[in-house]
């Protein structure tokens, strides 16, 4: 498949091999092969229903897979309950709908996993949480509850929360789709800063300009398969597969929002 197109020197941090997933009969993911090297940023593009979200959820073991394997840092990850909890601590995921905990402040949202799942003391967990909120420009909102924050602020809290367990890979599932266009910029800026800081990221997105800017590699998904992958340069300027070309043409003519 097309994944041979890019060569990476470092051993992959996250590797999906032959990953298949079905909901009932239809195949949502069809033998996906995808690997992420350390510090690499990969963007998944494709229309809704192409399997981007499912791929991220399967990678985070939130959905059982039907075939294939997931390797994290060289070790095969099983969906067995106890191992899965440990694996999820090494992967951070941010959802489109934020899913912040409404009964906790921004600080408590971020500090919860370090305290409960990693067993840090409350003081240590809150120190880490404060640093992350500051990094995402939310130092002043530490004691605010989610419902008093804007969508963009909530999404940045969610990013801080996902980073709080110091994951090896950050998975982002169309995290700007539910946001007001004016709030999108803040969130994308936060992600650019993370990418610059060397965070390994797998990003499902409809923001093509952002993908072109931040990604080391773009994967175009259609019908649960990676149809084409390559550098942003290659995918956006000279796509080889006619399906990729058709998708990009549609995006350019109708705008990304119409694809949701």
């Amino acid at each position, binding site marked *: 498949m097309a994944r041979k197109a890019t060569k990476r020197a470092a051993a992959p941090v996250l590797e999906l091999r032959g990953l298949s997933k079905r909901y009932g009969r239809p195949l949502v993911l069809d033998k996906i092969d995808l690997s992420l090297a350390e510090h690499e940023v990969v963007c998944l593009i494709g229309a809704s229903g192409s399997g981007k979200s499912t791929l991220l959820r399967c990678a985070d073991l939130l959905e059982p897979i039907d075939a294939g394997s997931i390797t994290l840092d060289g070790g095969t990850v099983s969906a067995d309950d106890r191992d899965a909890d*440990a694996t999820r601590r090494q992967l951070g995921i941010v959802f489109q*709908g934020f*899913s912040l905990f409404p009964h906790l402040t921004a600080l408590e949202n971020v500090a919860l996993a370090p305290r409960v799942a990693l067993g840090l003391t409350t003081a240590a967990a809150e120190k880490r949480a404060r640093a992350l909120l500051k990094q995402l420009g939310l130092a002043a909102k530490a004691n605010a509850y989610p*419902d008093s924050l804007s969508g963009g602020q909530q999404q940045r809290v969610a990013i801080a929360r*996902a980073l709080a367990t110091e994951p090896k890979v950050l998975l982002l599932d169309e995290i700007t789709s539910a946001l007001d266009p004016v709030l999108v910029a803040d969130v994308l800026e936060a992600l650019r800063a993370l990418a610059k800081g060397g965070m390994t990221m797998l990003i499902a997105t409809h923001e093509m300009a952002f993908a072109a800017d931040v990604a080391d590699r773009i994967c175009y998904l259609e019908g649960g398969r990676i149809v084409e992958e390559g550098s942003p340069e290659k995918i956006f300027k000279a796509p080889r597969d006619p399906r990729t070309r058709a998708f990009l043409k549609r995006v350019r003519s109708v705008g990304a929002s119409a694809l949701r």
Partner: protein
Amino acid sequence: MTAARSARKGTLVAVISTLVVATLVAISIGSSPSWPLVQKAFFDGTYFSSSLPDVIGAFAINIQLFVLAEILILPIGLLIALARSITNPAFTPLRIFATIYTDFFRGVPSILLIYVLGFGVPALRLPGVPKEPFFWALVTLVLIYSAYVSEVYRAGIESIHPSQERAARALGLTRFQALRYVVLPQALRRVVPPLLNDFIGLQKDTALVSILGVVEAFKQAQILKSANFNFTPLMVTALIFLVITIPMTRLVDCLAAKDRATQQGGTR
């Protein structure tokens, strides 16, 4: 300005119309030929003041009963609710037991159960088993209301959107940790109004234990009624119950309204 004035006018109209109707009702009842009879049998001033201290004294038993019962019901109900929401197949027997428990104790008339446990079990004269009617009255109320309360808890737990548990699990929290730190704190907040509602029912049902011979407010009133052939002591009992339950009902309404407001304005 005009809005404030029209609101004031509205209040005035409401007060006047209520007063007029209340006066008319009072006059029509008072002028009916049978009113003196009713008044003598149910609302006699002398019997009212003579029975009030006795009935209030006996009401202490009702208070003891529902306070003790509530303290026991809150944790037991939660345990049953949790037993019912465990999905792990290894715990299926526990889940089945909890389901049968709630079905049974919600479905059987309270008075029947009080009768059977309060008279039947002590009659077995089993060594070490208490015979006090108060004890068995308490046990029965706890058994019945734990079933009701567990359903309230369960509805609360199920009302929390699954995305909350998913977000918690995605952070690496175990199923139990997600329940403990994310789902339950939100669920418990939501169940306060329906929980209080069940407790109003419980407070009224403490009168049922009178059939075991426990001299609580209702039983005391019955004794006084039989002594004087006058129903006023029972009206006194009703009044005492109302003094407790009406403020609680208002509190429930108030909390529920507040809940609705935050849920409409809140996010998830």
